[in-house]
């Protein structure tokens, strides 16, 4: 394994070890996401009838809100004992640390989505499992795009006193295209019959976003993290 890959893996393994010990971020993220979906369920489901496409939007809003929470908490751990400085001192390309953190966030969010998708399908009677592979493609590609930007901003703001306010302010405007693509792609899968071509087109667009966001983040991580 190259040094880049090894360091990214070590950062991912370290974050996973801490999370498995504490389950802090996964439990708070899940609790928040489930609460969000339940509130929407009470608002949008009346006597068994559901606003069209609402479930697609609610799923992605829950992912985005829960993701923001997870991003903040993940970097709070690195800020607490200034371990982010120890990571940046490692003799590896600093972008490897970004990749390790990104993979950790993506895995965390996918774990939350494994719970969220059946919940949304159940509460909104949404046929989310009609095309499971396309749905998985949308979720993975959308999660990577959202987390790619979020990981960069959360790392950048780790020393800022206003990080809790600044993270959503910076994150949401830039990730709006990802959320829109996710919502429209999911809505296409929920139509009857499922529109696979449209869903595939949105997955393609999400993959383009992923490439652009990850490339930009790899390029800017080191200068942004050097004070």
């Amino acid at each position: 394994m190259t040094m880049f890959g090894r360091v990214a893996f070590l950062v991912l393994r370290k974050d996973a070890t801490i999370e498995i010990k504490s389950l802090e971020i996964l439990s708070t993220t899940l609790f928040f996401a489930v609460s969000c979906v339940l509130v929407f369920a009470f608002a949008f489901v009346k006597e068994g009838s559901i606003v069209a496409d609402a479930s697609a939007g609610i799923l992605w809003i829950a992912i985005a809100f829960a993701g923001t929470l997870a991003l903040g908490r993940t970097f709070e751990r690195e800020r607490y004992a200034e371990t982010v400085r120890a990571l940046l001192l490692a003799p590896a390309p600093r972008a490897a640390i970004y990749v390790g953190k990104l993979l950790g966030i993506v895995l965390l969010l996918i774990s939350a989505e494994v719970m969220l998708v059946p919940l949304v399908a159940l509460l909104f009677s949404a046929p989310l499992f009609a095309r499971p592979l396309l749905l998985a493609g949308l979720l993975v590609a959308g999660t990577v795009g959202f987390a790619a930007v979020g990981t960069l901003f959360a790392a950048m703001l780790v020393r800022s006193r206003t990080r809790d306010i600044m993270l959503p302010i910076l994150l949401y405007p830039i990730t709006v295209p990802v959320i829109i693509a996710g919502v429209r792609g999911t809505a296409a899968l929920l139509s009857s019959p499922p529109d696979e071509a449209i869903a595939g087109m949105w997955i393609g667009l999400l993959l383009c976003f992923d490439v652009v966001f990850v490339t930009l983040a790899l390029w800017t991580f080191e200068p942004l993290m050097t004070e």
Partner: protein
Amino acid sequence: MTFDFDTVELAEVSRHFGRRRALARVSLTARAGDIVGVIGPNGAGKSTLIGILATLVSPSSGEARYGGQSARDLGGALRRRIGLVAHELLLYPELSARQNLRFFAELYGLDARRVVDAAIERAGLRERADDPVAGFSRGMRQRLALERALLHAPRLALFDEPFTGLDDQAVGLVTVRLRLLAAGGAIVVMATHDLEVADGLVTRVALFRGGKLLLDEPAGAGLRGRYRELVRQG
């Protein structure tokens, strides 16, 4: 790429944070075997200087050179030769002492099995090696932080207020370790405002106030008196 050096030099280094000047045209050289005491009141620029030497802070102007080469050209090869002990201990409180050391050993590409047990022994934490660091006393954490920073036998060992919150016994242990490091050929740079400990430990004194280097000379007796006089004169 293997890289080593025996001098560290700051050449006309300035650093501003917005309109605030943290360092102003500082030139300073440290050699292998030196224990340089970076001394000054709060806000003197000591931590900024340590950050620049650690490559975590970039100078607004001027340059840090390691064996005559710029940090910009060296990247990871240079960081492999730098160790940092800060006031914040740079340890994961949720992980055990062993897990912390193992993580950092692997990050530096070291044989973790070989170096971790030895480091735990040196830190005097054999009985608590598998306990989470969150339950350790300040002294135990500081000893662990010291071993974490020195796992990879750095050429440049940077200490930012290493004695804060330590009892006399822990201060003694850290002091002995610093002397051993310098005797082994490391360049030790220590930012502190604890003149009592610095007096008799450091071999060079760099005195700062308001980001300016007021004094850079071999250490001698009576550091406290000279410090007070210089700070009063400004």
